[in-house]
């Protein structure tokens, strides 16, 4: 995986990019967001499949209609692929010991941690898309009492939403991921989004790993900050960034580069001020062209 939320080219998806699929996935992820904070257990979708959650993060998902298995994804990470026999040997040992297969493959050297995370991300994302396309709805929630998954192999609903949004233009999504990584400051998390020509609103294409909001809130926030830029055009067409203070401490910072919008959600006003300073120093503009003048560093307000 090149960065959280963006599959490497080895994992190019067979899922077609479509606002309808993104909307359907948002519906399925909404079921997860509706669970109480810290929910750990299995969300069952009848005969369609299930999603395993730990602290409301996605650890494992499976859908009846899926074609690729996790073991296939892991085998194909290396060239030549790891032999099926080697993977099956680890699988047999895991079955008798109860060890998770992925983690056993890492321990045996047949997969790397990054490779396992990428393969799990792809597998779980594909399963959730399959559930969404089938129109599946949960019919049962079974609470699990003890955690069994390593948190580093779990994913937020926002990460899965971004994975689906990225399918429209993987190169653009990868660039957006790099932009987020380079601009976000401590105590902030962020997302990148585009807006299509239809009325479906913001399409989230990248998030950083800390981005763990309800997907409806993330999309709602992206839509709202996109609207801020629209109204800003009426009084100043050169506006390249905006900052909003809300509540007593939190702040949003939004900026655009070429045709991608970004939002940094900050847990403190100092973090929002640092992000604005960083943007000002770089001189991001809506056009993506460097500005004529430079901007002085803002002191935290």
């Amino acid at each position, binding site marked *: 995986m090149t960065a959280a939320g963006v599959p490497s080219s080895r994992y190019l998806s067979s899922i077609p990019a479509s606002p309808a699929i993104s909307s359907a996935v948002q519906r399925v992820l909404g079921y997860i967001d509706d669970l109480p904070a810290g929910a750990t257990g299995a969300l069952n979708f009848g005969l369609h499949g299930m999603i395993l959650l730990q602290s409301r993060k996605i650890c494992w998902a499976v859908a009846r209609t899926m074609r690729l298995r996790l073991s296939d994804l892991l085998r194909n990470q290396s060239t030549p692929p790891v032999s099926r026999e080697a993977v099956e040997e680890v699988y047999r040992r895991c079955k008798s010991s109860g060890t998770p297969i992925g983690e056993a493959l890492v321990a045996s050297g047949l997969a790397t941690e990054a490779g396992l995370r990428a393969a799990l991300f792809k597998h779980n994302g594909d399963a959730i898309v399959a559930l969404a396309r089938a129109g599946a709805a949960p019919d049962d929630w079974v609470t699990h009492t003890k955690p069994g998954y390593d948190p580093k192999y779990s994913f937020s609903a926002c990460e899965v939403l971004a994975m689906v949004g990225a399918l429209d233009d993987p190169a653009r999504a990868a660039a957006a991921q790099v932009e987020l990584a380079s601009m976000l400051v401590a105590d902030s998390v962020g997302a990148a989004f585009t807006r299509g020509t239809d009325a479906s609103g913001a399409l989230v294409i990248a998030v950083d790993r800390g981005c763990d909001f309800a997907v409806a809130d993330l999309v709602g926030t992206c839509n709202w900050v996109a609207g801020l830029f629209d109204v800003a055009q009426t009084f100043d067409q050169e506006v390249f960034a905006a900052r909003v203070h809300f509540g007593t401490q939190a702040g949003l910072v939004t900026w655009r580069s070429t045709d991608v919008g970004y939002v940094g959600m900050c847990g403190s006003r100092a973090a929002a001020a640092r992000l604005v300073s960083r943007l000002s120093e770089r001189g991001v503009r809506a056009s993506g062209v460097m500005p004529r003048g430079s901007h002085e560093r*803002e*002191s935290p307000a």
Partner: protein
Amino acid sequence: MSAPLLRCAVASMRHGLLLPEHAESDAAPELEELAATLPEVFGTADPGCLERVAARLGAEQGGGNFSQVLFLSDSRVHVIQALERRAGEALVAVSPSGRSVGLVLSQVQARAAELEEER
């Protein structure tokens, strides 16, 4: 550093119009244009959504209402400052960019405090 030139006025959030009693006699057109966006800026935000976002960020609880919006462009800094003690009113301000944004914000907050004291 000399104080940046700051032009400001009070406007109605609901109607997007400058309030004549607080507008400078030669209110800059950019202030009128900024004021005109207030119904859209304040009317389209979902306070519940912002409050949930703030809660997940671990920010101190304080509701989802926002108090200040800052727009940065190559040539100007635009500020909308909601006036806490004057319901439905906001201070709108414009200053040339290229100077300290922090200083502009300090001036806006000082002016907002004066206006709220007048009430």
